[in-house]
């Protein structure tokens, strides 16, 4: 290896301008590939994070009410309810405690929390807004939707008679910490709550809609004593959520949906983006490899005499092959290290100059170390691969002919 490395380095240094050009070419290609990959990875990661910031990976829902025969069979005051299939009163999940226990025991599930949620109005004085009242157990809920870290004012706490509301709702109603609001359901049940905390979920609509209260308060407001409307769960492997959900659904017979199903359109868009990125990566790699190969083909011709001398002095065909493979590898390695640095600068520039409306970077765009390492390894391998044909022709060169020149 020492021989091949030494000769490869000297040959590259000797063809100064040529080597420089191709290394810059590789660097440019690697920078494009790395930059685009990091950007898209960052963008997709950010999109998914935002989507899942307020969503559970897996959600258990009550069964859709399909005109229950019991209601049809019994005429009277119940008929009036039957005419409105979307009952004001949220339905609760049967047997939710054993279901939650079973889900929690499933491999791949890291956290489970019960939810009692429904629509209603938040009222303060003359002002009222329609809201989603979400009854939670803060500790377990926080493990699924990190609510505590989104609190911007007050104390993260839901005690009986307390509510946490979003920034926008607080503005709309003109309430601040410690003041009271009335929450009323469609079913005319109402109660007064003291605002314990104000949060920012990073989304104005959610800040306007979500109101968090204790599970018990919600159960009594919605008149589902002891019941819950949903079970939320978090998985370890984000993208196996659909498998886990399908498995659970099959095992428990409950209506279970993963974030991947409820965001199918988003995921399809991300997939299309990923495919485009791959195409760009593939073509750039191809162009860079062709560049390396053509420079080395020329180099073999230029170095015929030197190759002949080395062969006469005892270098084997295999050694000459390695000299040129090594040159390809060095060009790939040096070019890709430069390219990675260039990509880092580009990403830095992106985060400095491409800002969102709030003056903050659109999203975090760092160059992940593993991406940089992967790109460098792949580029080095591609360099060696691109050198295969020139290396073969160098090895096949007839030393007697080369020396006669």
């Amino acid at each position, binding site marked *: *290896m*020492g*021989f091949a490395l*030494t000769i490869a380095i*000297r*040959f590259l*240094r*000797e063809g100064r301008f040529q080597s420089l050009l191709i290394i810059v070419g590789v660097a440019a290609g690697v920078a494009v590939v790395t930059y685009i990959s990091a950007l898209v990875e960052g963008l997709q990661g950010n999109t998914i994070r935002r989507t899942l910031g307020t969503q559970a990976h897996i959600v258990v829902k009550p069964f859709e009410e399909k005109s229950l025969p019991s209601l049809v069979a019994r005429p009277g005051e119940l008929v009036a309810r039957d005419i409105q299939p979307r009952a004001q009163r949220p339905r609760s999940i049967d047997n939710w405690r054993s279901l939650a226990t079973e889900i929690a025991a499933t491999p791949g599930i890291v956290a489970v929390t019960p939810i009692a949620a429904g629509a209603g109005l938040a009222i303060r004085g003359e002002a009222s807004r329609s809201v989603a009242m979400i009854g939670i157990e803060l500790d377990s809920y926080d493990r699924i939707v990190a609510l505590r870290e989104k609190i911007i004012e007050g104390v993260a706490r839901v005690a009986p008679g307390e509510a946490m509301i979003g920034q926008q709702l607080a503005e709309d109603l003109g309430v601040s910490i410690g003041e009271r609001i009335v929450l009323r359901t469609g079913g005319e049940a109402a109660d007064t709550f003291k605002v314990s905390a104000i949060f920012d979920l990073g989304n104005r609509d959610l800040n306007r809609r979500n109101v968090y209260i204790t599970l018990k308060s919600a159960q009594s407001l919605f008149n589902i004593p002891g019941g819950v409307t949903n079970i939320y769960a978090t998985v370890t492997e984000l993208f196996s959520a659909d498998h886990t959900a399908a498995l659970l659904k099959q095992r428990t017979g409950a209506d279970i949906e993963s974030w991947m199903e409820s965001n199918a359109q988003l995921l399809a868009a991300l997939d299309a983006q990923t495919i485009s990125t791959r195409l760009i990566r593939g073509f750039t790699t191809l162009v860079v490899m062709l560049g390396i190969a053509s420079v080395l083909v020329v180099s073999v011709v230029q170095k015929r*005499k*030197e190759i*002949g*001398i*080395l*062969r*006469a*002095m*005892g*270098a*084997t*065909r*295999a*050694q000459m092959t390695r000299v040129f493979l090594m040159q390809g590898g060095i060009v790939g390695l040096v070019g890709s290290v430069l390219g990675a640095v260039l990509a880092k600068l580009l990403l830095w520039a992106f985060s400095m100059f491409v800002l969102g409306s709030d003056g903050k970077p659109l999203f975090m765009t760092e160059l992940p170390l593993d991406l940089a390492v992967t790109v460098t390894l792949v580029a080095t391998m591609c360099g060696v691969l691109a050198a295969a044909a020139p290396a073969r022709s160098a090895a096949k060169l*007839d*030393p*007697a002919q080369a*020396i*006669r020149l």
Partner: protein
Amino acid sequence: MSERAELLRMSGVCKSYGVGTPVAAEVLHSVDLAIGQGEFVALIGPSGSGKSTLLNIIGLLEPMSSGEYLLQGRSVASLSDTELTRCRSDTLGFVFQFHHLLPAFSALENVLMPAMIRTGRFSDADRQHGLSLLDRVGLKAAADKKPGELSGGMQQRVAIARALVRSSPLVLADEPTGNLDTHSADEVFALMRQFNRDEGTTFLIVTHDPRLAQRCDRIVELVDGRVRPTDVHDMAASKA
């Protein structure tokens, strides 16, 4: 002839180029040649007579078309390319007409190249050895210079040092003085003579210079692809 161990023996060696093409030509017709260890032999002949071709075959740089060639008693006809290369590396040193040094390496590194090809590095011991060789060809001061900074005669002296770095028993020189002025040519020739005397290295030197050829132990003349028969008894006569 019996006093010297035989270094190489060729019998009935033929070489054709372009076999199977309309321009096929036989360059060597049944060459018979024997060289003993420690000999200092001139190979002469008109241009195009096949001197370089013969030297390349002896140097295992190209294969013969037919015949038998024993190098150090070993038949080379059936050796693989890798075996030929190993054999070349262990047995043969080369000095070419146009210097043929590697321009990217210093004089010292050029001298060490045959060793580096085998070991993969320029070791300190090798460096010392290379420097002493450069000293003997009078170029110690130029050790770190690139070939481009040296005169033709100096480059050729570097090439001689390189041919000797692995103590190869046989050095093949193809018109080593062909590109040099008389003074430099004499210097280079004298160096080869000196190594022949001091180390017992065998030399086979192609030359167009009758003056230098006369100063060799023996002259082999190639005419129309054949060794001229007068040569045969020269060997015994030339023994000093």
